[in-house]
């Protein structure tokens, strides 16, 4: 099996379900990693490939919903498909609202699982690309000098050059020079583009 194809994580405390889903997904040419609790999944080193998580809601200690929150905190970005033996509408609404791709009541068919996985993996692709884009922007930001970074932040907030100058206590000319360099290093052709880069990198609270 390929070592860079999409990987499907399965977290379910029922060993039999882990084994069955693993067989089913491998038969569908996916790489699979199964875990019987949330802690093991969190301890796993996640390769930066397309992936999704098939997650049981009822788990010992850390349940599915809590794991979803912890993943956001730790920056583990992989779309989630919830599975549960308690088919509850309010629960599924809660899950989808929190960003889950789908919510499958047990038992689910191969077809419905594969549909959800296809959706999740394309989402994963978008997320990964976004991640990669952000990483690239952050690399560019790293090349800025402290003063340039400061000017970048002011510009990103939509401040005029003269306002920045008076705030920094320097001449308008100096600010203009800094700003030119920021544009160059960030590879932005317009101010709008620069602001958008700042937003993507989380520089300004938009």
């Amino acid at each position, binding site marked *: 099996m390929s070592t860079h194809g999409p990987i499907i994580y399965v977290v379910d405390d*029922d060993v*039999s*379900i882990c*084994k*069955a*889903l693993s*067989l*089913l997904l*491998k*038969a*569908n040419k996916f790489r699979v990693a199964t875990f019987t609790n949330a802690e093991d999944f969190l301890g796993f080193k996640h390769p930066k490939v397309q992936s999704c998580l098939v997650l049981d809601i*009822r788990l010992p200690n850390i349940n599915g919903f809590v794991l979803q929150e912890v993943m956001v905190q730790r920056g583990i970005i992989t779309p989630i498909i919830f*599975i549960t*033996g*308690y*088919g509850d509408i*309010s629960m599924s609404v*809660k899950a989808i*609202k*929190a960003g889950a791709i789908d919510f499958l*009541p*047990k*038992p*689910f*068919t*191969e077809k419905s699982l594969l549909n959800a996985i296809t959706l999740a993996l394309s989402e994963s692709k978008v997320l990964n690309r976004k991640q990669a884009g952000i990483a690239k922007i952050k690399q560019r930001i790293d090349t800025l000098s402290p003063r340039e970074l400061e000017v970048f932040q002011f510009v990103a907030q939509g401040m005029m050059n003269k306002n920045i100058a008076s705030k920094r206590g320097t001449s308008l000319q100096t600010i203009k020079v800094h700003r030119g360099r920021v544009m160059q290093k960030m590879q932005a052709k317009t101010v709008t583009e620069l602001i958008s880069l700042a937003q993507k990198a989380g520089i300004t609270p938009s």
Partner: protein
Amino acid sequence: MKNKIIRKPRQTRVILPEKPKGPLLNIRIRNNLEEKVRQQTDELKIREGQLKLGADREKLGADREKIAEEQIHIRTKAMESTLDGIFIIDAKKADFPIIYANPSFFNLTGYSKSEVMGKSYFLLYGFDANLRIVEEIKQTLHQGKSFHGEMLNFKKNGEKYWCLLRIAPVRNAKGIITHYVGIKTDTSLMKQRDSEIEEQREELLHVTRVGKLAEFVSSLAHEISQPLTAILSYAQAAQRMLKDREPQLREILQYIINDDQRAAEVIRRLRSLLKKNKPTFETLDINTLTNDTVTLIMPHITAKNKVIRLELDSNLITIQGDRIQLQQVLLNLISNSLEAMEDSDSRELLIRTSLKDADTILVQVKDSGCGIPEENKPKLFAHFFTSKPDGLGMGLSISRSIVEAHGGHLEAENNPDRGATFYFTIPIHMKSDR
């Protein structure tokens, strides 16, 4: 003759001035006279004493009469003032005629005085009367015993009312029954209140039963859906692996898949059938809710010879909650405590409400029973866990899910001395669901 005269003291004066007839005679006469005077004086003294005694007696009799009259007056007034219907039946006549009835009796039955007096008591029961009871009353009275019973009666206008009837025989000095005295009390209001309480209790029990069943089915559905999921995935994986080979095996796998889904469908339908009733949130006063719940379970508590002590904080703020569900929780905790105290000589069960902090109400149910064994603590709130021989193991797990649905927590701990305390919190401002 003389004797006669002496007995009549007024005539003695006529005798006294009798003239002496000679010296000897004189002396004799004088002696006689002195003797007589002495006698008469003594007699007079006795007579006077007798007279005085007679006057006293007369006075005493008059006083007694007055007191007796007063007492009769008070008793009559009392009988006329009481809200109970009182009547007296002449026992010497076979048809039980009423010879006295107080005003409340007329109010109660709706009959006027002229319709009642001299008529048979049992005629008043009308045609709707339960003849078996009428016969029972007659039989009891014939045996010279008192009758005591509650029954449905009808007023003159046909209106129904519940009546507590007591009839007792009245005997004369020789022990012969001369009258029957009866008291009728209208118990309709009490009866209505009792039936309201009974209705509420039934409703709560029903909800509890349905809740238990729903929780049971839900848990069962989960337990079964796990292996069904695995079976389905195994079969579909095998099908995938076989691809175009072994068509017969692939067919068998398909049968497995179909039947797996059939089982899943059964569970789905069962679950939708017992879908949990959505809690209906209303503004609630925890103290009122506690009082109501205690009223419901009171007969049970009294029957077990236990007492409930309530310590309700009067400064509590109302909360938003489902009345029936929270009553269910409280009822469950109280029942558990009673069971824990079953074999205990201690009687008291304490329910306390208080403010845990500005935003949280705390409700504690403290018993003095057997306490929670250390090894049971981790499983206490788990589905199907029970320490009772006939328990389902659903009560505490349902209670916890109800309390959590209200944004609170349900916990338990053993008391330092004896028994256990179960307590739950309810936030005053319910956090909105995400």
